[in-house]
């Protein structure tokens, strides 16, 4: 176990360094000019050139990268070229929003997906199984900006059960903020449930047809006892990796939902800064997202090994 951990932990900073270099090179090639974006098209070339110099954009690329890396490592993430606010608060604030929405969606996702997967697995090839599988497939197949739109029209505009924008007024309590997050979270859950449920269904079917369940039946245990004691644990453990994949998507991938529900998440910031070539913000967002992405990958692998006794020890050969 520890060998796996150290190897993966060592890989993280290396990969993040590679990502930051790639991002630097990418923005160099991207068209457009951040100084022009700040001053607008009607400002004179002279003032645009003057701003470029003050932002240090005219220095050589390696110099700028070294400069950025030196300060970034010491916690000074610089100020956003366009929004002129400290990048750290901006990115971490936006990340906080994304994490809140992702966590809320994840909390809804886990019980629903596991429940449906188990139900489908236990009624293998019966109508409930077919319905759950097909509906899961269908919802998983529909882009989130489509389901989101439909949810908005029905629940926000017509029925007015939930607010249309996911952004509560500043300073609102957690409950109010969650109320604003219901619709975006539901549209994410609809998207991700199918994938997780399918994995849980597969492991449930495997558990039901396994020798140890047959042996338990042969010892006179009733179906409900068998399910409760043996099937439950053995079918939910493998779901961790499927949940892990969805967790990664929930962090970096929910930009369309952020946009649709007007929610200031980190995904939207990432693209906005990429288009504006606002380098400090883009770098910080890419590195933070990358770090989070890899930590989740590692967390999933570790929990998977911890939960499944067979993999607990580092099995050699």
């Amino acid at each position: 176990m520890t060998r796996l951990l150290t190897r993966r932990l060592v890989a993280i900073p290396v990969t993040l360094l590679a990502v930051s270099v790639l991002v630097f090179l990418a923005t160099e090639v991207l068209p457009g000019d951040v100084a022009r974006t700040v001053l607008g098209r009607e400002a004179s070339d002279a003032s645009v050139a003057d701003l470029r110099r003050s932002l240090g954009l005219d220095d050589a690329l390696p110099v700028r990268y070294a400069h950025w890396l030196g300060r970034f490592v010491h916690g000074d993430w610089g100020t956003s070229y366009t929004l002129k606010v400290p990048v750290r608060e901006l990115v971490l604030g936006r990340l906080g929003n994304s994490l809140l929405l992702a966590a809320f969606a994840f909390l809804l996702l886990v019980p629903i997906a596991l429940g449906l997967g188990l139900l489908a697995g236990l009624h293998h090839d019966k109508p409930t199984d077919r319905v759950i599988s097909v509906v899961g497939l269908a919802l998983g197949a529909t882009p989130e900006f489509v389901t989101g739109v439909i949810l908005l029209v029905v629940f926000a505009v017509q029925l007015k059960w939930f607010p249309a924008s996911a952004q509560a007024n500043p300073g609102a309590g957690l409950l109010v903020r969650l109320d604003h997050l219901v619709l975006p979270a539901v549209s994410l859950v609809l998207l991700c449930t199918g994938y997780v449920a399918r994995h849980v269904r597969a492991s449930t079917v495997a558990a039901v047809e396994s020798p140890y369940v047959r042996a338990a039946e042969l010892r006179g245990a009733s179906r409900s006892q068998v399910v409760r004691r043996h099937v439950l644990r053995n079918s939910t453990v493998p779901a961790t990796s499927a949940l892990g994949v969805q967790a990664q998507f929930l962090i970096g991938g929910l930009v369309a939902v952020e946009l649709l529900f007007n929610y200031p998440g980190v995904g939207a910031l990432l693209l906005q800064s990429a288009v504006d070539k606002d380098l400090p913000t883009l770098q910080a967002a890419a590195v933070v997202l990358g770090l989070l992405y890899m930590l989740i990958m590692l967390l999933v692998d570790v929990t998977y090994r911890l939960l499944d006794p067979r993999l607990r020890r580092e099995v050699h050969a």
Partner: protein
Amino acid sequence: MADHAHPFTPSRRGFLAGAGLTGLSLLAAACSSGTPPSSGASDATSPTGAAKRGGTLRVGTPAPPTSLDPVTMYDGSAIGIVQLVADYLIWLDPDFTLVPRLAQSWSAEPGNKVWTFVIRKGVVFSDGTPLDAKAVKASFDRLLDPKNKSAALSAFDGILVAGGVSLRGTDTVVFTLERAFSDFPYLVSAGNYNAVILKSDYAGNFAKSPIGTGPFLLKTYNASTGATLVRNPKHWQTGKPYLDGVQVKFYADSQAEQLALQSGDLDALIITDPSVILATGNVVLDKVSGTAMTALTLRADKAPFDKKEVRQAIAYALDRPGVNQSIDNNIGQLGNDHLFAPLFKAAPTDIAQRAQDADKVKQLLSSAGVDKLSFTLTFDPPSKSYALVIQDQLKQVGIDVKLDQRSSSEFYGGDQAKDTPWLFTDANLVAWAGRAVPSQFLAPMVTSKGVWNGSKYANPALDAALLAYDAAASDDERKKQAEIIATTLHEDVPVIISIWNGSVRAYNKTKFTGIKAHPSTYVDFSSVSRV
């Protein structure tokens, strides 16, 4: 299949494709003076009966792409927020009439080169320091200093330069111009949106120290979510504003705003896209005509548009009412390919309005020796709809248009003297915000040395006529010059103007009253009150 760890993090539609959908171009909302001073200034029409006090107005607007800085701001949201906090010398009413604000009165010596403004007495900044001529002079010196990189520099270009502002006594400011300019009051009015009056010691970070003389105080500002403002007790317009405060919420795009309006999350919008926001349920739209437009500029200095006939063929190929219908929800006015909007007093009315004429197009093209015309039209997202309309209409008359959409930062990026796409591509669409003074379009766009002359059109006769127009003291002299300029442009067609965009502002009629539209989406909530 659903195991879609799909790697794409779809972006914020807002900036790339979406910004276009906000109709008004955020990047182009520069505005300046309008028609000469009319009858005495009058407050906004007082509401019927005593206005109810109190209540917080919740307003939606797209997040400003840059920081909140009055000196360099250019987008509608930043301008709107600053206008709630700071004042101008002169305000511009929706029909471009000049309304005295911090300037009590103003007058020009004969020849329109020296202008004196008397500053209103008894006005204090929100931190208590009284307003005086020194603060006004400091505000304009700040704009004129190239170090501050203000967009206002281009508005004053060739008219007022650093050092042209002097004091006389404690409450009078004198502006000495480089050349006669009869419409000068418009340049120091709200028409030149950067020209807000700030304290002399303003150091640049407006979001942190938002001191102004306006009706509201800026309490909090967050670049991602929005701003909260409260009544300014020291505001000089006694009894105003009626509201307790204003809460500004940033929206990714107009569709999210429409939903918020309808579901009651919002009471009004600062910027309203006419093709998206519709009057349904409690949402109503206040409409005004304006002088904003999207110019179809053709490079007159090289093929295929070096021949006048080819340019005219394009002009005759366009179905202008169809354009008005498709991209401005029919609230615009037809353009006639010269830069005098109907709203301008000096606009000539006797030039025949061009209309789609397929035969004339064929005849013009054959006379220019061009049998099959095809060209590439470059534009950025805000003009996407108009580009599609042009492509389809021109196809009906056999002209093939290839579309080349660039991101806004790419379209306006690059060197304005050599290669920036919006000034150097063969045919392009550039959206311009409403202007109060025709010469603000004419001078930069069609004069030989114009700083934004995308068509590279150079006609000394037109240059002379414009100088004469600016300097003209009387209205008939002004009309005569306008006639010359208009007919020349109508004939040579370096820039095709199919419609002048109207302007709307949506609000919830059951919540607040006194919310008015404005050609340049300007914001004056001082007389807004609860229903």
